[in-house]
């Protein structure tokens, strides 16, 4: 159940004394994300905040020092949100070659089973859209993408896996994404790509930024 | 900065020599010592000790500054030394806690630790006897 669709207004909560979380109401979409980007830019100018971290239609604000009255900050952010400002970012579109299924796509059948579709339909629906990069997070260079076909949405796994390799193409809930390096994951891994997302020595260190777009191109399938 | 040991030496010399007042100034400090003449009358300089024919007496290891004495580490009660232990010269035998600091108390010479004179975790003053060290093997 996607709680956010039922909210009438944004939800604000605290992450200890270190950060606050602002979650936009309504269906997951690009318009909300553009409003989040605008809110992040507004927050960057506020005293006492160390960093703005957009997520999927949400925003985490990390405190430099914990504010005395977080409620005041909540009110301020809600007022700013109601101004309905949007930040449109126009970036590049990048094509990722993907090999679906097989050894590096162990959960492709689980996704097919959950959605009631055939494996080739899952692949077709996954590789059809243009995916905007909403935000980076999770691990260095990882892109959170919007626009996944809800027909292939699959819940995160019961127990997260200790490690999946870099380049793993996965689905978690309503979202899809590609791992930029090896690490743990609770998502359903359906394929693999060789694309490089991160270089610690480059400026910026990431290849893709919010406002860029990805398309997946199926170059191979293993049953 | 003058250490307490140096001040004690100066005070002893003052008493023996008859000097009444002395003032010492350093970079960030000034110290004044006054020796009360009545004190000198009541405590004349000691006669030299007789030549010892019996085995040497226990040497008392004393606190070099005020603080809290630890024979077992305050974190986990691990015993550092206990009566009966043989120690070498310069060996760590206890810790002296001053505020957050823990300073070492080293044995001045080789010997056997005879008895602890104060309880573990006690507050001690400059000169408090901490532990008796039997001299010789």
């Amino acid at each position: 159940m996607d709680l956010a669709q039922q909210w009438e207004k944004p939800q604000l909560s605290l992450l200890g004394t270190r950060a606050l979380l602002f979650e936009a109401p309504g269906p997951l979409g690009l318009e909300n994300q553009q409003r989040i980007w605008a809110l992040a830019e507004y927050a960057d100018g506020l005293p006492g905040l160390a960093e703005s971290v957009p997520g999927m239609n949400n925003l985490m604000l990390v405190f430099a020092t914990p504010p005395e009255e977080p409620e005041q900050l909540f009110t301020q952010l809600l007022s700013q949100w109601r101004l309905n400002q949007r930040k449109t970012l126009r970036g590049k579109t990048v094509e990722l070659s993907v090999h679906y299924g097989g050894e590096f796509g162990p959960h492709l059948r689980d996704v097919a089973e959950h959605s009631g579709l055939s494996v080739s339909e899952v692949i077709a629906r996954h590789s059809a859209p243009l995916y905007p990069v909403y935000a980076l997070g999770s691990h260095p260079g990882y892109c959170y993408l919007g626009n996944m076909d809800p027909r292939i949405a699959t819940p995160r796994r019961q127990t997260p896996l200790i490690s999946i390799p870099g380049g793993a193409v996965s689905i978690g809930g309503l979202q899809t994404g590609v791992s930029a390096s090896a690490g743990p994951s609770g998502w359903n891994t359906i394929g693999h790509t060789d694309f490089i997302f991160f270089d610690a020595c480059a400026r910026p260190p990431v290849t893709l930024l919010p406002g860029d777009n990805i398309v997946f191109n199926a170059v191979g399938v293993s049953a | 900065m003058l250490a307490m040991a140096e001040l004690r030496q100066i005070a002893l010399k003052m008493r023996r020599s008859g000097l009444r007042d002395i003032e010492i100034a350093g970079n960030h400090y000034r110290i004044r010592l006054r020796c009360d003449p009545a004190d000198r009358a009541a405590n004349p300089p000691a006669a030299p000790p007789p030549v010892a024919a019996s085995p040497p007496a226990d040497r008392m290891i004393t606190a070099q500054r005020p603080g809290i004495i630890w024979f077992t580490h305050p974190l986990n009660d691990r015993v550092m030394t206990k009566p009966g232990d043989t120690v070498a010269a310069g060996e760590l035998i206890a810790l002296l806690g001053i505020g957050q600091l823990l300073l070492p108390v080293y044995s001045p010479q080789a010997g056997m630790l005879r008895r602890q004179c104060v309880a573990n975790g006690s507050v001690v003053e400059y000169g408090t006897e901490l532990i008796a060290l039997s001299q010789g093997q």
Partner: protein
Amino acid sequence: MIVIEKTTPLSSVQDLGRAGGLHYGVGTAGAMDPLALQLGNALLGNAPNAAAIEIPLFPVQVRFTDDCCFAVTGHDGRVMLDDVMLPFWWSAQARKGQRLTLHASSRITRAYLHLPGGIDVPEVLGSRSTQLRGEFGGFQGRGLHSGDRLRAAAPQQGGPVGFGIMPPWSALGVANTPVPMIRVLPAAEYDIFTEVSCRAFWHQAWHITPQSNRYGYRLSGEPLIAKVPLEMRSHGIVPGVIQVPHNGQPIIQMRDAQPSGGYPKLGTVIDADMWLLGQIPVGSQVRFIQVSYQQAREAGRQQLAYLQNAIAQIACHRRYAG
């Protein structure tokens, strides 16, 4: 310079962590016990953020290839310089050729080995901490192996050694509780858990499973049940966030955790207790206690005051001793 002679690959170079990279997906990394890091740095006259070697598994043995002072903080395991046992939370002088061996403690996990000026490794994206996922920062972006050589950033930095400090376990009164109590602020999804589950969270002693590490502490106990199964959108998180995946067993996000996640959050461990959590051994138990935002903020202030006071006392002693 030191040469690592024995280590597990879990030893790594850490400072206080990497800031400003969350929006690139770069987490903070950094020492699991930031108090030990800063106090050890103070013992040698280092900047508070100088890098040290964090050691969670033992024995670890290093050989000094030059005369060098050093300090060991964090745990209360045996510290041997050749065949002489040193007190813990202590600074000392090593001569060329001497070997330092660190052994495990049964109740405090991690030790920190400090060198003058800190460990000399390049700064990457503003920090010398090791970023394991992505393999950069620290010593070549990885844990340490035998044969690795590490340098002190300021080998000539002098000052008195041969003294120590009261560990935070004693100074903050933590050593007295048999099962450590960790303070937690409820998070956004606290109310989606059943009342029975919420009570169980606060009342039971949770077991820290062997699958716990710098990424996260996986706890086991009575499962926590949500009133409705939730699919959450990925959102930013910080170390200390307690996530509850579908199996109902909480995971506390630690220093190497992903900077974002999508599992329901029951609460967040307060910043002031993260050092303690980072030192509680795998296989032991932990309990949680609820606090308010203001209490958490006050705890942070008190801890900062303690730390600044201890660092000032050490600096004063270094200036006037010897």
